[in-house]
């Protein structure tokens, strides 16, 4: 990216792009909702970011980076306690394919992915108007899909390779 030196150019007030400090806030968000992210994706992103920053090392503790350190630490701590920790892209894909037949909205599928409900009560919370849209057998089938495809918190610690997208053998919690 080349930097333009502009000795003869005068900055006029009418210029279209004043520095952001002249504006009041981040009003230029083009799309406030361009994509929903699952907890697993955020977990992956933050873990990779942490690895990268550990490798480059030197300026982790400067005051400017403190905020980033805090938020990544806290968010990772939160997500690590959810079942998302043990997911992988293949599992997510398999889960979404299996859910196609149930006709759920994107938000509902996301909640099922993030929370891994195990009881019918939880399904009723996450799926809107579930009494009208799903019969009892469908709820059972949905529960079965969720618990069989998405891995639960295993008793023993599973080693997960976070530096590459290796497909994980999902354990069926018998």
């Amino acid at each position: 990216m080349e930097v333009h030196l502009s000795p003869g150019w005068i900055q006029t007030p009418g210029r279209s792009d004043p520095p952001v400090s002249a504006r009041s806030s981040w009003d230029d968000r083009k799309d406030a909702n361009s994509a929903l992210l699952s907890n697993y994706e955020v977990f992956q992103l933050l873990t990779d970011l942490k690895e990268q920053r550990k490798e480059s090392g030197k300026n982790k503790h400067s005051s400017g980076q403190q905020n980033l350190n805090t938020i990544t630490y806290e968010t990772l701590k939160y997500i690590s306690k959810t079942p998302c920790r043990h997911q992988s892209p293949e599992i997510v894909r398999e889960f979404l394919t299996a859910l196609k037949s149930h006709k759920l909205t994107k938000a509902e599928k996301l909640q099922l992915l993030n929370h891994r409900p195990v009881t019918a009560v939880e399904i009723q919370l996450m799926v809107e108007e579930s009494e009208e849209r799903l019969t009892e057998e469908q709820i059972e089938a949905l529960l079965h899909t969720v618990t069989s495809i998405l891995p639960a918190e295993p008793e023993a610690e599973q080693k997960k390779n976070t530096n590459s997208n290796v497909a994980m053998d999902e354990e069926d919690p018998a």
Partner: protein
Amino acid sequence: MFVLVEMVDTVRIPPWQFERKLNDSIAEELNKKLANKVVYNVGLCICLFDITKLEDAYVFPGDGASHTKVHFRCVVFHPFLDEILIGKIKGCSPEGVHVSLGFFDDILIPPESLQQPAKFDEAEQVWVWEYETEEGAHDLYMDTGEEIRFRVVDESFVDTSPTGPSSADATTSSEELPKKEAPYTLGSISEPGLGLLSWWTSN
């Protein structure tokens, strides 16, 4: 829980950082500016996701730094309406139950959204759900540190940009005192399945 938000901003790179790769400097600056900050009407920014477009960088007279307009996407914590979340109870007060997610602390469950009937125990400063069964009423306490499942019902962003000096006869009263109000989320647990996790797992 998390969304990707596309934003545009102008990033200033001071001259002593010109030897670094532009992309790295910009990523670092954006993270410094956005991480752990709440953007009005957008949400709590976590970190930079990626840079989609870098426009030409300009150097303005009088300032040796380069200014680059950057289009990027940011990971933002912004729960959608009616989303179910699991958090920890931070404390109780007469205003309601305060819940925290670790990285985000300002979640309030007001008394009217608790499982009814609920009362506030003044002695222990804790909210109690009086659960009626055939045997009699069970008192279910909402203790600090307990995990709680709740539904998001409302969100409130407070504009904390600095206002001018207040004149003696200013009519608006809310921003007079330096009362720091944080943007907060309102939750509700008045449905079956919501509330402390322990209430629903032992059945």
